């Protein structure tokens, strides 16, 4: 078994392990934080005259080389270390070689590499070394980088403040190396300086704070900022994007533009697809199936079920694609991170946990991962509250219904209608959050935190493309998975006669099991103006996934009048008729009430499963009760107030 070797750089008894310099050469340790140019300096000082290997007894790599000049020195490149606090094996070895060894085994001189562009960051190690009986020399690197940033470091003044010789070096251009050599030689002949005194009895934090006070004083006296800091493009844009007043307004304006652009560009494409699916595609499929000898049931299932239902949902692919592209552009540019900060301010303002903005922002895409994202919150109370609020965020599935209703009932302002629903969503989150906090979570505090933002950048085509495709694929998977299954169930219920003279797959939809079941629910929604069996049935299937509301409507009206083909215009006319009848001649307040109900009630079974998993059955059930109650009360209020004016 190999005996572990003691850590030592220079020793009265040293065997000079790994040394390249001649025996007896003074040992100089080179230390510094990672990424300050230490290794570049070591290479410049030693050239090819060096060896690199693990320090004996450790797995930490250490370089050692001969530093030639007026006198040859044994230069030891110690691992990068921010401090002597030994938070990593690298720092542990550095500490062992500079602190935990007898005085006679210390290096004769220690050269500390300090980054002029990040002076305060580099000086913590210097502050700790100054508390030890060591001969020090500071090699100041990155001076050119600092100057480009408008920072001028006065090396002489810094030397006075630190009580250590400071030499500006540029190892890449081999500038200042001779002066550094001379400074080290001068230190070799000088007595070991007195250590910087630190007050006795300080705790860990107070001691670190004392060092930072020393650092701050040195930085303040040795540096001048020749250009105003914080003038990058990112900072300039952030002055508006993160402004207390302009920030939220810019965010709202951006989202309005996204919805406006999405609906303006996508609705004509969607109409064209809709006409194709409901017209030629359905006709050709019917003809083909009849030609193949398929019976009424198969033809009905495929044409009135799958094509009418899933096909209608798939007509939203262009809309979702445009929306996802725009969101990906905002995300990749770095703007969405700013939106998060703006949201965070609102969270703090109303006393919600600061980090709760993240799951809520995610929820605007899809509620399911948003529920999972509540795990970033540190206490169970915060996680439960946020998981209860997530379902009020208007996910992209609801967007499809909002766009359909916006285009049918408000054709000139569909984008603004969708945007208004997002505002309602935000208001719902804030008000419900406040109500829950005032009642159930009075003692919940917020965490002190700050947020670092990525700089703005030009969005990259590949990332935007990948991001859009992944999201679109999720939409397609839902459409061809759970929606297809729902479509089949709805078709079966609509084909099943429970009254009248019809037989299976040949029954007026109003005489079907589907209509009969929907009629039992419909009276609940009568005070909200959408108490028709068509709307109520769609809302029930909407429990599965919100896109199924569209597929169910499309199936209902296709089955109701198969000859009409159920194209987009026909569906719009049927929806207008249905809302007009159920609202007693006030269709617009009824549509707003329907959209508010749609926004507030349970998003989908996948979200329920996620809630169940994250916060348990009891809170999930409580959440469903709250969502249904809030949705119904708001919908009734919107309709009853709206019908007075509209």
């Amino acid at each position, binding site marked *: 078994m190999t005996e572990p070797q003691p850590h030592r750089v220079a020793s009265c008894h040293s065997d000079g392990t790994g040394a390249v310099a001649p025996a007896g050469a003074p040992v100089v340790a080179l230390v510094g934080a990672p990424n300050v140019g230490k290794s570049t300096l070591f290479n410049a000082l030693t050239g090819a005259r060096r060896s690199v290997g693990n320090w004996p007894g450790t797995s930490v790599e250490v370089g050692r080389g001969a530093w030639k000049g007026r006198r040859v020195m044994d230069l030891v490149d110690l691992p990068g270390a921010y401090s002597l606090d030994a938070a990593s094996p690298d720092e542990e070895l550095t500490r062992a070689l500079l602190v935990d060894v007898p005085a006679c085994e210390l290096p004769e001189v220690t050269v500390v590499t300090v980054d002029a562009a990040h002076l305060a960051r580099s000086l913590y190690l210097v502050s700790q070394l100054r508390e030890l009986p060591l001969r020090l020399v500071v090699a100041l690197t990155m001076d050119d980088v600092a100057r480009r940033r408008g920072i001028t470091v006065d090396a002489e003044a810094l030397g006075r403040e630190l009580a250590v010789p400071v030499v500006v070096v540029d190892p890449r251009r081999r500038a200042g190396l001779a002066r550094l050599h001379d400074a080290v030689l001068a230190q070799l002949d000088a007595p070991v300086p007195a250590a910087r005194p630190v007050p006795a009895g300080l705790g860990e934090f107070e001691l670190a704070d004392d060092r930072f006070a020393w650092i701050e004083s040195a930085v303040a006296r040795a540096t001048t900022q020749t250009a105003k800091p914080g003038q990058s493009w990112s900072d300039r844009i952030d002055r508006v994007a993160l402004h207390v007043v302009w920030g939220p307004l810019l965010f709202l304006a951006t989202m309005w533009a996204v919805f406006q652009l999405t609906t303006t560009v996508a609705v004509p494409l969607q109409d064209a697809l809709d006409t194709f699916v409901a017209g030629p595609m359905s006709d050709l499929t019917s003809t083909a199936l009849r030609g193949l000898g398929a019976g009424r049931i198969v033809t009905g299932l495929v044409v009135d079920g799958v094509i009418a239902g899933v096909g209608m949902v798939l007509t939203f692919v262009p809309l979702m694609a445009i929306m996802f592209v725009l969101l990906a552009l905002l*995300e990749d540019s770095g703007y969405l991170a700013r939106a998060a900060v703006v949201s965070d301010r609102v969270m703090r303002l109303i006393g919600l946990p600061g980090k709760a903005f993240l799951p809520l922002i*995610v929820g605007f*895409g899809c509620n399911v991962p948003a529920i999972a994202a509540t795990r970033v919150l540190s206490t169970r109370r915060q996680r439960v509250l946020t998981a209860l609020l997530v379902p009020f965020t208007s996910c992209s599935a609801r967007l499809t219904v909002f766009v359909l209703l916006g285009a049918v009932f408000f054709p000139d302002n569909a984008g603004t209608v969708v945007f208004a629903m997002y505002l309602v969503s935000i208001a719902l989150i804030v008000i419900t959050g406040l109500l829950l906090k005032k009642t159930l979570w009075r003692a919940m505090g917020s*965490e*002190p935190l700050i947020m670092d933002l990525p700089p703005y950048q030009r969005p990259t085509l590949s990332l935007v493309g990948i991001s859009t495709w992944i999201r679109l694929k999720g939409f397609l998977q839902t459409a061809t998975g759970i929606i297809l299954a729902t479509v089949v169930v709805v078709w079966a219920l609509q084909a099943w006669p429970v009254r009248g003279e019809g037989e299976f797959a040949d029954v007026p939809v109003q005489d079907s099991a589907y209509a009969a079941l929907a009629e039992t629910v419909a009276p609940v929604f009568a005070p909200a103006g959408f108490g028709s069996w068509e709307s109520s049935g769609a809302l029930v299937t909407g429990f599965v996934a919100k896109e199924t509301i569209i597929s169910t409507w499309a199936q209902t009206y296709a089955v109701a009048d198969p000859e009409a083909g159920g194209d987009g215009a026909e569906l719009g006319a049927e929806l207008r008729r249905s809302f007009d009848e159920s609202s007693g001649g006030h269709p617009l307040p009824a549509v707003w009430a329907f959209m508010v109900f749609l926004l507030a009630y349970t998003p989908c079974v996948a979200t329920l499963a996620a809630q169940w998993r994250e916060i348990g059955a009891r809170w999930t059930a409580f959440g469903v009760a709250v969502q249904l109650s809030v949705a119904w009360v708001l919908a009734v209020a919107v309709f009853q107030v709206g019908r007075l004016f509209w």
Partner: protein
Amino acid sequence: MSGPLALVAAAITDGAGSRAAVAERTGLARDVVDAALEHLQRMGRLTAEQLGSGCPDGGCGTCPSGTADGRAGCGAGALPGRRGPVVLTLATRP
């Protein structure tokens, strides 16, 4: 008198939500604020989290919307190169 570390920690506790806000409240140079924040992280007083994805720590396999073979079943998960904010949370100690 409080030093820079204590000033920075106090500024975060008092609601400074960004590095710029901390610098403004404390009167410290931005470089000193950056160094102090970094040191608070090393001391364990601040914890850093990369945000911008709603995905659980265990990946798609632990997400309710993940597929049986461990792939993302939703549109929001596992996006490469996401550029979210980093949250630095100050640990509250007795």
